[in-house]
């Protein structure tokens, strides 16, 4: 499982994609990172327990929010994981969850960097 990252995307561009003010987008993004990090931890526990139903439901929630915020890297991974969990396939799910966590970390880094060097 993988994703194509739009190289060097800024927070401003991300906000424009959604049509929101940068500040508004930032607060939503921070909320998204906080809640999704918690969801990914739940997801990892569900994968560990072989509970594909919970995997399915949690990735469904993550995907919905990512689509709202136009973050295709995350919604893409979540969608694929969701499709596989629906068929009770959890093979590769741990890696996918790891990818989601990395993407969230990446988003956190973008926020950090831009806070350090505001445009």
């Amino acid at each position: 499982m993988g994703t194509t990252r739009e190289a060097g995307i800024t927070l401003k561009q991300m906000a424009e994609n959604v049509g929101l003010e940068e500040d508004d987008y930032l607060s939503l993004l921070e909320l998204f990172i906080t809640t999704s990090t918690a969801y990914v931890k739940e997801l990892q526990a569900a994968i560990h327990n072989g509970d594909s139903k919970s995997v399915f439901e949690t990735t469904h929630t993550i995907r919905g929010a990512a689509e709202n915020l136009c973050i295709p890297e995350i919604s893409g991974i979540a969608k694929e994981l969701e499709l596989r969990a629906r068929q009770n396939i959890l093979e590769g799910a741990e890696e996918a969850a790891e990818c989601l966590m990395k993407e969230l970390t990446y988003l956190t880094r973008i926020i950090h960097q831009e806070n350090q060097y505001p445009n």
Partner: protein
Amino acid sequence: MLSLTEKKVLQTAEKGSGGEKKVLVVDNNPVMLSFMNNLLVKHGYQVTTAEDGVTVLKILETTTPDIIIMDLIMPNINGEKLCRMIRRMPRMKNTRVVILSAVAAEYKTNLVDLGANACIAKGPFNKMSQRVIETLDKLESSSAYDFKDEVVGLEETNSRDIVKELLFVKKHLEVVLSSISEGIFEITSEARIVYANPTAISIVGIAEEQLLASHILDLFHEIDRGRVDNLVNNISGITQNTNDDSFRLINGKEVSLNVLPIHDVEKKSVLIINDISDRRRLEIELRQAHKIEAIGTLAGGIAHDFNNLLMGIQGYTSLILFDMNTNHPYYDKLRRIEEQVRSGAELTKQLLGFARGGRYEVKVVDMNEIIDKTSIMFGRTKKEISIHRMLDENLWAVDVDRGQIEQVLLNLYVNAWQAMPNGGSLYLETANIVIDKGYVKPYSVKVGRYVKISVTDTGVGMDEKTRERVFDPFFTTKEMGRGTGLGLASTYGIIKGHKGMINVYSEKGNGTTFTVYLPASKKEVIKEETVPIDIMKGEGTILLVDDEDIILDVSCELLEMLGYKVYMANGGRDAIELYKEKMSEIDLVILDMIMPGMGGGETFDFLKSMNHDVKVILSSGYSINGKAKEIMDRGCRAFIQKPFQINDLSDKIRKVLD
């Protein structure tokens, strides 16, 4: 303590000013809530948010929003259910409901039927912002609900197959839960109800909109709340299964309770309740039936011995009186002894009735005719009671011992009369009824056609404790010496002996109804005329068999007085020996049924094997579970109940010999 959402609600409410429209947004996704909150506040709305249906219901207790925007798929109470509940609240009739969902198009429910005024598909926030504001503007400008069940913004949504699948699974589970005969509740960690299946709703008898978000303990009777609270709070990853004996009360029903934890982050639980009221009623009735059966065996034994004693007294009294002049100074005293014996025999008859002493003379009868006859006779002596008869003209016939059933009815009439010391009404009703399996279970009787006889009084009624013991022998509510406590006990035994059922319904101060069910006969009633019996002398030789010497002596003298020659045997084996020797001479055998060693039944079979046409009258002060009838069915010619009088004896003998 207030949750974060509730605190937010209060803060927002404090902030609100006159012209702002109040909007309540419900979604379990915090990102969505935050987005909607920002968007709507910017456009001048006063916003409250909630993450689930339980919180919404709490908020609506104190607030009436102008607009509610809600997701369809949410934990606890879902959007569909929440929408229906809101629409049932009269306060919310002017509140506009907007569904905001990614799954609206797949939701197989008509959104207009739900009571929604608009529906917006979720999607990227830039598109959603525009749609939300446009929709709210439209709703504000329109006075009527003009929603046409169309979803705004479907074009941007995707991944619909997954959503369809999710909804299908969800709907399927709902169908399964709706079909289960157990009541199922889902409760939060604070014991608030977030789901109840139709069986649960029916058991508790509370409408769903009132039930959801309420506390589970409030459903239980206050005496059970502590125990249920412990159970709900103590689940630690294992199934808590309460013992069925330890039932709880909900809505006047007895229920068993299972609590199962849900292994998720929200720490919710599932409560499974089973309405066991009917089962417990059956168990109580079964226990009662067993208890009465045990006491019946004891009572029957006493009656048997007592009848033999009475037979001795009656026999010798009859012998003395037989050729005594009525002017004799002892004549009246002897008649008094006979009367006392009759009273004693009545008492043992009641005892035997209770002990299911058997149906000696079963005939096809019309219960209406017996009720007419007995109630008219009873009414003549109890003028203070007005009797109302509601008898089914097409009543099926029944196979009964007429004398015993008359005794049953008289017992019930007397009981009613005693319950109405200042007079009242007695209602007698008959009807045909077909009884099913569930009803007959505690009574050990067959399903099928029955004749139902109800005896209802308008008397003082009974409390539950009295009602439970009403058929117990020697149980009486009357003062010492006034009642034997055998009337209803014998009634019970006689009805059981007829493979019928009897039950009682009564409330303190509101009268009593006894209902008797007797199996319907397949035959038709044959009318008979009764004639008074005179003493008839005769000729012939009789073999008298009994294990009690006094019965042998007195019966022998009675028979000789009637003109018969008598051989005596004090047991079955002696009888066989004597019969072998004198078979050609013996015209009739009078055979006791219960004897030590070889009993009456076995002796009869031996006699019959020696002489197929042997004429036997069975005699007993006792019969167990229709044993007399079994022997009669094998070819015995007649039955005579001890203690018997000389005219009865002479009549039975002549009928068999002639």
